[in-house]
C-alpha cells in the first residue's frame, strides 16, 4: 500500500520571503501526522500547499498513487482531500444542514441521498439537533464541528485539520480530541496542524516540527518534545 500522502521538497516563497523551505513529509494510511511549530513557522502555508490552496515554487505532492502537484484544490478535494479552514467560514446564510449538503453533493448528486449523508455527518460531530439553524448563528466550538462535518461529507480518504482546537475552552477541547480520535479509529488518515501541544501529543503517531519554514525535528511525540532544538524554537534561548 502506498503512502496516503507523500510531499517532497515543498518550497513556497512569498516575494522574497521563503515561507516553506524544502520540506518533505509522508502520511501512512490510517496514521495521524501532527504539524507543529511557533507562530509564523509556515505550518499553515505548508498545509495549504499540500491541499492546493497556495501555489508551490517547487516540490511534488503524491496522494495515494496519484501525482496531484499541479492540480487545483477542487480536483484534490474530488480525489479525497477533505480540509477544514483555520478561520472557519461557514456559509452563513445557509442552514447547518445546507452547509454540509454542499459537500455531500460531491459524491451523492441526488438531493435525497445527499441530505441523508449530510445528516449522518452532523450526527458524527453531534450537531444534528441544530440542522435547521442558520450557520452564521453558531458559536465557535460548533462552527469548528461544522467545519469538520463539511470536510467529512466529501467522504475523504485523508482529513486535513487546520487548527481545529485553537480557542476552544477545556471541555470543548476534550470533546474535539475525542472526536478526532474516533475518526482516526474509523480508518481515516489525518494530517493536523496544531498549536496546542496537548492535542498533538495525545493524538499523533508522528510529529513534524517547523520553525522559520524549515523542518527542525521529526519523530514520535515523545522524541520531539524532548528535543532541545524544539524547546529552543518554542521557548527561545537565554
Amino acid at each position: 500500500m502506498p503512502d496516503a500522502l507523500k510531499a517532497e521538497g515543498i518550497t513556497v516563497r512569498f516575494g522574497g520571503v521563503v515561507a516553506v523551505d524544502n520540506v518533505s513529509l509522508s502520511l501512512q494510511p490510517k496514521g495521524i501526522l501532527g504539524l507543529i511549530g511557533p507562530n509564523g513557522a509556515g505550518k499553515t502555508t505548508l498545509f495549504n500547499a499540500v491541499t492546493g490552496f497556495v501555489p508551490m515554487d517547487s516540490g511534488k505532492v503524491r496522494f495515494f498513487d496519484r501525482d496531484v502537484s499541479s492540480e487545483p484544490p477542487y480536483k484534490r478535494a474530488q480525489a479525497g482531500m477533505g480540509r477544514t479552514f483555520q478561520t472557519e467560514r461557514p456559509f452563513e446564510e445557509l442552514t447547518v444542514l445546507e452547509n454540509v449538503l454542499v459537500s455531500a453533493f460531491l459524491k451523492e448528486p441526488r438531493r435525497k441521498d445527499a441530505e441523508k449523508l449530510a445528516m449522518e455527518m452532523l450526527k458524527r460531530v453531534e450537531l444534528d439537533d441544530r440542522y435547521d439553524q442558520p450557520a452564521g448563528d453558531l458559536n465557535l466550538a460548533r462552527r469548528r464541528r461544522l467545519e469538520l462535518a463539511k470536510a467529512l461529507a466529501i467522504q475523504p480518504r485523508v482529513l486535513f485539520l487546520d487548527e481545529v482546537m485553537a480557542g476552544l475552552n477545556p471541555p470543548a477541547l476534550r470533546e474535539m480530541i475525542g472526536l478526532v480520535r474516533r475518526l482516526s479509529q474509523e480508518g481515516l488518515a489525518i494530517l493536523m496542524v496544531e498549536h496546542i501541544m496537548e492535542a498533538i501529543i495525545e493524538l499523533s503517531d508522528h510529529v513534524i516540527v517547523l520553525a522559520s519554514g524549515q523542518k527542525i525535528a521529526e519523530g514520535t511525540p515523545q522524541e520531539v518534545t524532548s528535543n532541545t532544538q524544539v524547546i529552543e524554537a518554542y521557548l527561545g534561548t537565554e
Partner: protein
Amino acid sequence: MIRHLIGLLVLLVAGLVYPWIFPSALTVGVTILLFAGWATAWDILGGWAGQVSLGHASFVGIGAYFVAIGATEYALAPWWSILMAIAVAALLSLAWGRLTFKLHGPYFTLSTIAIAEILRLIAINEDWLTGGATGVFIDWMPTPFGIDLFAREAQYYLALVFAVGVMATIIWISRSRFGYQLRAVREDENSAMAAGIDPTRTKLKAFMLSASLTAVGGGIYGMMLSFLEPHILFYLLLSVQIALTGIIGGRGTIWGPLVGAVLLVSAGEIFRTSFAEANLLIYGILILLVILFLPSGIIGEFNRRLTRRLYARRAQG
C-alpha cells in the same frame, strides 16, 4: 418545494385572470412579466452565484434583434430566431465570463458595464448587422394557428409563459446540486473548492443559463416594441432596471425578483400618471427606503427572519 409549486400555480392563475380584470392595462402586465422573468434570470448569476451584472441589457438586445432582423430580412418565425438568440447569448456569455470571472466583486460588475457598452456601440455603428442608429421596424410576423403576434394579448400570454418558465427553472435549481454549488461559490470560493466545486465552471454555467433565459424575454420584448433602437435596447439603464428589480425584491430568493417587478413597474406606472414630474424622485425614494431598511431585499429579509423563527420554534417545542 410544495410551497413554491403552489406559489407558481397561483401566479399562473393570477396571470390568466389579469387580462379579464385589467383589459386596458395589458402593456403594464407584459412589462411586469418580462421584468419578473429577466430579474429572475439575472438573479441566477447576480443573486445565486453572487456575480452582479450590469450588462444584461445586451442579452435583451440580442433576443429582440434576432427576432426583428430574422422577421424582416429572412422571414424567419420568432421561435426559430429566439432559439438562435439563445445559442448566441450562451456563447457570448461563455466568452464574456472567461474574460471577466478572474475579477471579483465590484470589479466584475464594472467589467460587465464595459462589455455591454462595447456591444451597444457595435449595435449602433454596424448598420449591416442591426440597421444602425435609425432602428429596425418589424413589419411582418407569422400567424401560427391564426394568432396575431402583433396583438398585445398574444404577447401577454407569451410573457406569462416566459415568466412562469423562468421561475419554474429557479425553483428546480434552488433544490438541486447546481443550486448549492452556486450558493457555495457566492458565499466563499475557497470553501466551495474544499467541497470539490470548480468556481469558474460554476459561474460560467450560471452566466450562460442567465444570459440565454434573458434573451428569450428579449425576443418577446422585441415583438412588443416592434420598433427597435440599439441605444435603448442595449442601454445601461435597462441593465440597471433589471438588476434593481432583483436586488430590491431580494437576491438569491425565488420570489424576490417577481415581487421587485410588481413593485417597481406598478409604482413607476402609478407615479408617472399621478405625480407627473415628481415620479422619478418618488421612485428613487422608494428604492432608497428598501435598501436602507431591508438590505437583503424584501423577500430576502423575510426569508432570513422565517428561517430563524422556524428554528426557534422547533428548538423550543
